[in-house]
């Protein structure tokens, strides 16, 4: 028995050591100052989930960096923002996607259900402080422990490869988001099922998402960065569009001081959508050209932005 215990301990110690080295290098790679640096020309930062990720083509809008990321809820966006803002003093504006799905309880599951946590947690873990970690552990510790081995090796191995060997940062490897020009068009294959989405129009609010959205707003304010909410275009049959009244209620009740740049009525044909919620490459180009034009016309300095946007849409497309 002694022999077994000795051999096993020795074997496990070596294994543990290898894992620790991978862990340390992977963890520290995201915490160096170089990783989150973005172009000094970028004055505007776009954040949110897949909607802005697919909408803002930053090859067209030159002084803007799109770091929207599929499946990213405000909890994860907040973690990212905490790293980016202090290291990029050139950023003056944050445009944060705030659309109808953000007030649906589906955001809870996007934050901590098994399938999401498997992908998100290992990637964002190095960005968490004690309170963030405590929060996510309280939601689904089992999934976190289950995803630890595989995804940590996967993520941290990639971090080491990307940061130490290839010296690539957040922009070039797209692990934390970036513009994604969709090539698909699935709108015509999706029938109008808005009646069955009525169930989404309930009164439950994802408080976790709202809480972290407040943290994002406060963080931007404390860093003297102006934050705007933005609602990028979506198809008229988009399933979360049914909760418009709840959406307006949340905006009014919790975020009345944050201005909303609303493009939900931006004129696009069905072929410009990748699906009901996302623009495809063609749609994002049309939208980005228009948005760039608005920026050049001084959108962010206008007093009544909503009217300005409405007028410009009308002027250009009707």
């Amino acid at each position: 028995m002694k022999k077994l215990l000795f051999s096993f301990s020795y074997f496990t110690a070596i294994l543990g050591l290898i894992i620790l080295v991978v862990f340390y290098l992977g963890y520290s790679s995201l915490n160096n100052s170089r990783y989150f640096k973005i172009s000094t020309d970028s004055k505007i930062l776009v954040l949110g989930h897949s909607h802005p990720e697919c909408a803002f083509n930053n090859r067209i809008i030159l002084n803007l960096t799109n770091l929207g990321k599929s499946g990213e809820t405000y909890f994860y966006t907040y973690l990212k923002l905490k790293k980016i803002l202090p290291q990029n003093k050139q950023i003056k504006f944050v445009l944060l996607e705030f659309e109808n799905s953000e007030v649906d309880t589906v955001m809870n599951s996007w934050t901590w259900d098994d399938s999401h946590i498997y992908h998100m947690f290992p990637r964002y873990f190095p960005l968490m402080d004690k309170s963030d970690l405590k929060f996510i552990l309280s939601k689904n510790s089992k999934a976190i422990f289950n995803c630890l081995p595989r995804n940590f090796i996967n993520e941290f191995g990639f971090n080491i490869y990307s940061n130490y060997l290839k010296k690539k940062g957040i922009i070039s490897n797209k692990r934390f988001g970036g513009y994604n020009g969709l090539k698909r068009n699935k709108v015509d294959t999706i029938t109008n099922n808005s009646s069955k989405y009525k169930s989404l129009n309930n009164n439950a609010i994802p408080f976790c998402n709202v809480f972290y959205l407040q943290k994002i707003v406060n963080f931007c304010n404390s860093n003297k960065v102006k934050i705007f909410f933005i609602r990028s275009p979506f198809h008229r049959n988009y399933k979360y569009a049914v909760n418009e009244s709840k959406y307006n209620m949340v905006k009014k009740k919790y975020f009345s001081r944050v201005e909303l740049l609303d493009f939900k009525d931006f004129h696009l044909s069905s072929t410009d959508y990748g699906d009901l919620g996302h623009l495809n490459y063609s749609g994002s180009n049309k939208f980005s050209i228009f948005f760039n034009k608005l920026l050049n016309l001084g959108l962010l300095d206008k007093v009544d932005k909503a009217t300005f946007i409405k007028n410009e849409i009308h002027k250009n497309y009707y």
Partner: protein
Amino acid sequence: MLFNSIDFLIFLPIVFFLYWFVANKNLKYQNLLLLASSYYFYSCWDWRFLFLLIFSTQLDYYTGIKIFNSTRRTNKKIWLWISVGVNLGFLGVFKYYNFFAESFEQAMSLLGIKTSLGSLKVILPVGISFYTFHGLSYVIDIYYDRIKPERNFINYSLFVSFFPLLVAGPIERATHLLPQIVKKRDFNYRNAVDGLRQILWGLFKKIVIANNCAEFADTIFNNNSHQSGSTIILGALFFTYQIYCDFSGYSDIALGTAKLFGIDLLRNFSYPYFSRDIAEFWRRWHISLSSWFKDYLYIPLGGSKGGMWLKIRNTFIIFIVSGFWHGANWTFIIWGLLNAIYIMPSIIFNTNRNNIEIVAKGNFFPNFREIISIGITFTVTVFAWIFFRASNVTNAFLYIKEIFSYSILSLPKFEGMKNSYVILLLTFIMFFIEWFGREYQYGLAFVSKFKHRKMRWFMYYLLIFIIIYYSGKEQQFIYFQF
């Protein structure tokens, strides 16, 4: 609790420590500890079904003693049938009621009679097919005076519920396991290391090969109408390796775990895909079930002693029953039937015991004839697995129909199957390791012959890292549903 879960990774060392360090001095305490651990292990799935397990255990324990104590043959028979009836009754209700009710209703509707027997909305208690067969073999063996009943209830309960074999076998025999339970067990270093190595190999097969092949097989089986014939074949191949690595992986973990406690379980797999004919395949696949059916069904039915027709009839019966044991679906029955047809030439020409030893024993390469035989056996086996995997008979035939099209000549497509080439490569590596180790109890066992520890450990670390890389979401073992 699954073998491939973090929970089990914590559970096993705790039980191991308590077993060898706290309860070491007393066999009674060791068995009690193993029994308590086994019940805990089972209750992690659903504690309510623990009562069913305990009831079934008590029933067989009690009827076993009654059978033994009865002096008249009729009384013995009555007690035997009480046990068999109640055990199969539970199995029938939980596993087969809905199938029979549905089939009866369909048959009646063909005759123009509308009937409604209703359906039971109950989940299948995990491991019920396995522990029912444990209990049945015990009472039948007592009835035929092969063994004496175990008077100690703890020992008997442990025989039925020992956690490594509780939910998916191997289906143990009282003649093999009970003597080990009642005897003092000493720690053996080589045995324990061998157990750990076997667990590692089982985890590799389950987590790396089976789980990944499962994803690809599901992708192809669920969208087979849009796939080319060659891709459909690839889907069947993925399932072939999924089911082998899933179940043999489970068995390796079970056997390895039992070795850590000084208990030797029945071997369940012996490289079935290297078989040269179907008879050999069935001596190497799910060995504990095949031998159970042979001993408790085939032989009581007359076996091969009553002439050719009886032999053929009995063969069909055990294969169909074996198929039905796997699940209440016509697909399993057809799978069993197909295997009975496959084995017929060996039965008729009396060649079913031609290939007893492992292929190419003592040589590295098989000869040409062996390669052809293995290839044919493997091909027909893959074909039969299509029925096993398909959700219903119609889908199985549609799947087969898609194979036989011109697109069979095109290259298979790997759409939606990320890293499929890596998994194919790892499956080949697993295949070769099993080929190297085919004369040992399990594939990786040949590593124990490496002279240098550094070589052995390098192999273990490599496997551990591949396992870690491919671990993640826990996936249930296929045989849990049976």
